[in-house]
């Protein structure tokens, strides 16, 4: 039946158009959110900068705490992995990349015969590792596109506990670093033990040399400062991951919209072509039907046949007379 294929195509175009509207809306939402996430990351920067400054000042003042968080690595038997993924998909390769980096880290530890502990942030990582029967020590989710400091505190408490009491000798953090709107990279960093305060200090410019007064004492300040430092680092990583997730989603949705547009063009062309073909076929059917009729009557005087069989002579004659008519005034 002619038109059936056309109708199927028309329906498909309508459906792609709907999908395009949805992906376009998601793209716009992600675009505004990524800006907000960047603002939040910038607003959070002063705190971690100041905390690092205080640690620098403490180092300059010669504070030296025998804190468990500063305990150097002697022999690694158990590795902790903290992975920051997203709660939701449709963000391109964002979740896959960071999860794969974390899995690689665990496989490395396993191949060396080490034990591992896994802490996941975000539903995607939790689902992935649970499905593959990894042991998950703790998982946090429901806030990855808008993390708050309280969540960072909760994660920090869990991770610190794993390191201090849970037998982990090293804790690695896998997350997606937000470089620019166009580039984000998955990084796996050593998170605990912390570098000694001298190394933290030398990372910044250690210009502070003035004699500080401490209350209650330099070591006591350092001891209560280190947990805050860990929290602020996790918070910074969460904010970076959130911005990366949104930037990835924006990009993924943009290309989905572009692809939908391309499909629409392709299907429209196909539909037009099919329609043309249907029309041509219909004409052919009429002609051949008429011819069949003419054959039945078998008379050359048949009107329809006269019209359809292209007899050029009357036309040519017409044109000739017109020609001569035009030319006569000139000659």
């Amino acid at each position, binding site marked *: 039946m002619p038109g059936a294929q056309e109708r199927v195509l028309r329906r498909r175009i309508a459906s792609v158009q709907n999908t395009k509207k949805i992906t376009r809306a998601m793209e716009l939402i992600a675009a505004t959110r990524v800006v907000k996430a960047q603002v939040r990351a910038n607003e959070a920067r002063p705190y971690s900068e100041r905390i690092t400054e205080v640690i620098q000042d403490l180092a300059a003042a010669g504070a030296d705490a025998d804190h468990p968080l500063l305990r150097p690595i002697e022999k690694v038997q158990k590795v902790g992995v903290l992975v920051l993924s997203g709660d939701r998909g449709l963000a391109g390769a964002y979740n896959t990349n960071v999860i794969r980096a974390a899995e690689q880290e665990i496989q490395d530890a396993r191949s060396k015969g080490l034990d591992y502990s896994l802490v996941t942030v975000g539903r995607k990582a939790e689902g992935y590792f649970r499905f593959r029967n990894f042991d998950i020590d703790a998982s946090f989710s429901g806030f990855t596109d808008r993390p708050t400091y309280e969540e960072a505190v909760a994660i920090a408490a869990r991770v610190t506990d794993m390191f201090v009491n849970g037998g982990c000798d090293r804790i690695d953090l896998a997350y997606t670093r937000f470089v620019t709107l166009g580039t984000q990279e998955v990084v796996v960093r050593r998170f605990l033990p912390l570098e000694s305060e001298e190394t933290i200090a030398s990372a910044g410019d250690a210009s502070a040399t003035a004699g500080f007064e401490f*209350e209650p004492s330099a070591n006591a300040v350092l001891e209560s*400062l280190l947990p805050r430092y860990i929290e602020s680092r996790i918070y910074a990583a969460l904010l970076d991951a959130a911005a990366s997730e949104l930037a990835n989603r924006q990009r993924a949705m943009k290309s989905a919209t572009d692809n939908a547009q391309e499909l629409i063009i392709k299907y429209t062309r196909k539909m037009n072509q099919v329609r043309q073909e249907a029309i041509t076929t219909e004409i052919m059917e009429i002609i051949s039907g008429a011819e069949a009729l003419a054959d039945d009557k078998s008379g050359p005087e048949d009107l329809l046949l006269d019209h359809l069989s292209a007899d050029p002579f009357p036309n040519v004659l017409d044109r000739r007379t017109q020609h001569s008519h035009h030319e006569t005034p000139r000659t």
Partner: protein
Amino acid sequence: MPLLVELVSPERVAYTGEAKMVICRTTTGDIAFLPGHVPFIGVLATHPVRVLLEDGGEQIIAVHQGFVEVSPPEDGTTRVTILSDVCELSETIEVARAQQAKSAAESALASDSEDVEAAAALRRANVRLSVANA
């Protein structure tokens, strides 16, 4: 030559301004900073911080633990930085919520006087209320 006061919470810089004097409570006792104070780092208790402004006004801020750092003077200005997980200006405190938290903590303490968390919650609620009412 005023003091430059900065109140930094993990989520943003909550307050910046110039002041004549800053009074806060560290774990070992109250301390006030005037311009030209020696460099100082202290651990703060849960207590309101009072910032005496240049124009004679006063800004009171609820600070629930954290740190205070007085940086070495640069170009004659002394910078006081307060780092705290929770620091609230009096305008942003919800009195009703603080009241509720206070009564909840009090009833928890009444049933179990050893409850450390409830005691801390009560202390925080009291600080909030005193800042809001100041």
